[in-house]
């Protein structure tokens, strides 16, 4: 396993990055047949991809299950909006500040939470996140604007904007390029590619290896005289920064930050994405994030008449029944589908979709191919510690 600087591995990583870059940048083309090629949704793919990738650095590598990651997302969003309000609508300072703020926040929470492991760690992070959420709604209203949500107003100083955008719409603006529609997506996509590349570097680095060792057997690491906590804390902070970045990107097209982004159900969602795709794999979490956002979009937009056309081929009586059954799972009932999907994955496929694909590949291509696949794709450490 000590072949992280191996030439083959490096090459395959470069191939991976190139394929990944092409795939992301051509999303508007190949998502067309799936009906998902509009910028809003693709931007969501990218943002939640970043969020899940960051979460995976913590959960996938070290095995620490944080139930409070949405707090960092919220901090990122608030910081970004404040940056828009005070400095101007350029997204770059907003991203940088959001990442720094989320990092500091993660340092504080991680420093305390990482004193415990297992479920105690989960509950600590959950408690911190709920505290942030409750405070954002109540006492911190001057900073967060409470229930209404924080938004950019025309009367804000925005000192670097000059007076150029007095009349224009209040959207983020990268040196003259307005962050709406496709350009907004491409901005997020470029950020996604950069941070994914960074994540791959972490996975392959000695540091990443150390994190995997923390997951596999923390006690033994202790016996070798190594203090694991700084490594875990570093992973926690990095993953918090990813979340902050994702939170800031959410404000790019719609400069609005609300406290509900910090609620623990939002933390649950990112856990779900990561598990669904495959925790501890490189591309799994991103896949999971994409799938969940895609199905959320598709399923929740279904209504009676779309169902009618889907089940058009059935005879009269059966059609009614099929529509009423399917109606439970779409539209308003999308969360039911999500919950079921989640349970099925955890029960039958704890390794996530990537694990499923690997098993499939094993079945199709036979043993030899399957033997080296996990090595290349990396990281099928058994969950738990």
């Amino acid at each position, binding site marked *: 396993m000590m072949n992280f600087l191996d030439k083959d591995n490096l090459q395959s990583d470069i191939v991976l990055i190139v394929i990944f870059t092409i795939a992301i940048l051509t999303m508007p083309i190949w998502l067309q047949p799936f009906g998902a090629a509009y910028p809003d949704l693709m931007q969501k793919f990218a943002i939640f991809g970043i969020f899940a990738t960051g979460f995976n650095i913590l959960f996938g590598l070290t095995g620490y299950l944080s139930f409070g990651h949405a707090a960092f997302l919220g901090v990122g969003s608030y910081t970004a909006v404040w940056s828009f309000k005070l400095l101007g609508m350029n997204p770059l300072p907003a991203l940088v500040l959001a990442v720094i703020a989320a990092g500091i926040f993660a340092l504080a929470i991680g420093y305390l939470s990482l004193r415990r492991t297992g*479920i105690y760690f989960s509950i600590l992070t*959950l*408690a911190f996140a*709920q505290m942030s959420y409750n405070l954002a*709604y109540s006492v911190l209203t001057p900073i967060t604007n409470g229930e209404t949500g924080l938004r950019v107003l025309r009367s804000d100083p925005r000192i670097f904007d000059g007076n150029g955008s007095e009349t224009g719409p209040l959207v983020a603006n990268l040196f003259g390029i307005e962050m709406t529609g496709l350009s907004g997506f491409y901005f997020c996509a470029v950020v996604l590619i950069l941070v994914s590349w960074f994540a791959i570097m972490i996975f392959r680095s000695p540091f990443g290896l150390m994190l995997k060792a923390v997951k596999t057997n923390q006690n033994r690491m202790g016996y070798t005289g190594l203090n694991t906590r700084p490594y875990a804390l570093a992973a926690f902070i990095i993953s918090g920064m990813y979340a902050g970045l994702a939170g800031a990107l959410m404000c790019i097209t719609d400069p609005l930050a609300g406290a509900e982004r910090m609620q623990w*159900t939002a933390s649950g969602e990112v*856990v779900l994405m990561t598990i669904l795709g495959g925790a501890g794999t490189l591309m799994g979490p991103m896949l999971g994030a994409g799938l969940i956002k895609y199905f959320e979009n598709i399923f929740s937009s279904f209504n009676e008449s779309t169902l009618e056309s889907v089940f058009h081929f059935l005879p009269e009586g059966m059609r009614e029944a099929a529509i009423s059954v399917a109606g439970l799972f779409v539209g308003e009932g999308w969360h*039911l589908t999500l*919950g079921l999907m989640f349970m099925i994955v955890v029960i039958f496929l704890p390794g996530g979709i990537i694990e499923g694909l690997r098993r499939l590949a094993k079945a199709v291509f036979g043993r030899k191919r399957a033997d080296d696949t996990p090595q290349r794709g990396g990281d099928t450490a058994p969950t*738990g510690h």
Partner: protein
Amino acid sequence: MDQILLQILNGLDKGGAYALIALGLTLIFGTLGVVNFAHGALFMLGAFCAVAVYQFLNLEQVTLDPDNLTPWGTPMEIRVPYIESWFGETGAAILNFAVPLSILVAIPVMLVIGITMERGLIKHFYRRPHAEQILVTFGLAIVIQEIIKVWFGANPIPIPAPALFSGSADIGAAFGFAENAISYPWWRLVYLAFSLAVIGAVFAFLQFTTFGMVVRAGMADRETVGLLGINIGKRFTIMFGIAAVVAGLAGVMYTPILPPDYHMGMDFLVLSFVVVVVGGMGSLGGAVAAGFLLGILQSFASMTEVKSIFPGIDQIIIYLVAVVILLVRPRGLMGRKGVMEG
């Protein structure tokens, strides 16, 4: 002084709910070693048992009254619940006591749900890591919640307490304070008494019956009990059912205090986990004590005097206590040394 007494009372009924849910969570953890994130959903299901019974009893018979006309000239509709038109006074009384009567329905229903859940899902997760137990029960909680939402809608459904308990008790007078200084809704007193009774029953069951003795032995050393030829797995399954019943009963009786909606379980779940952790993982007494303690703390924190010193403290007090306890004394108030410490 009367303020303090009032806050203690205010905390007790909420504390009762926390204690009941936390007791169930701890029972499940202590017997089966499973971290059950769907326990809040069981509380919610209990509440909706009451809703279902109430709605069923309230099915109305519509008759037309030709003597009275509406302003539109059509006969006035008279809506009478069937039960009232069939049984008269008795029927009205049954309707009035819908919530307490729901207990009779909730016990078998929750027992069946609990046992089904354990046999159908949880038993496959004994040997899997806690993280996966959390995740799968979390998924189950979402599913249960959404099914309830489909059935009963998303809005809170108010359920009245029996008329007998609808007023407020003037507790202040009993303690020698001015009249009406401390008035406290009767139903909350009933809830407190009820939760104490349920807690007492569970403890008595564990302490004084042979079944309870075997279960306690199994919690201490499952393997040895198994070697003695006792089917401990079966008993633990039943304990899971009992834990579900306890959570369900907490929900049934809570409906007049808080109109149930589909996500009430999640709200209580997070708090109950905090309660369990504060009390000490696996400690039944700790769970009960911490439940009442945190309920009272929460109501003290929401006093205006306290809030003016620490703004926002009422929102975070419970989490704050949990964080401090976890960092300083991870086994909780009454937990045994070494149980889930880390």
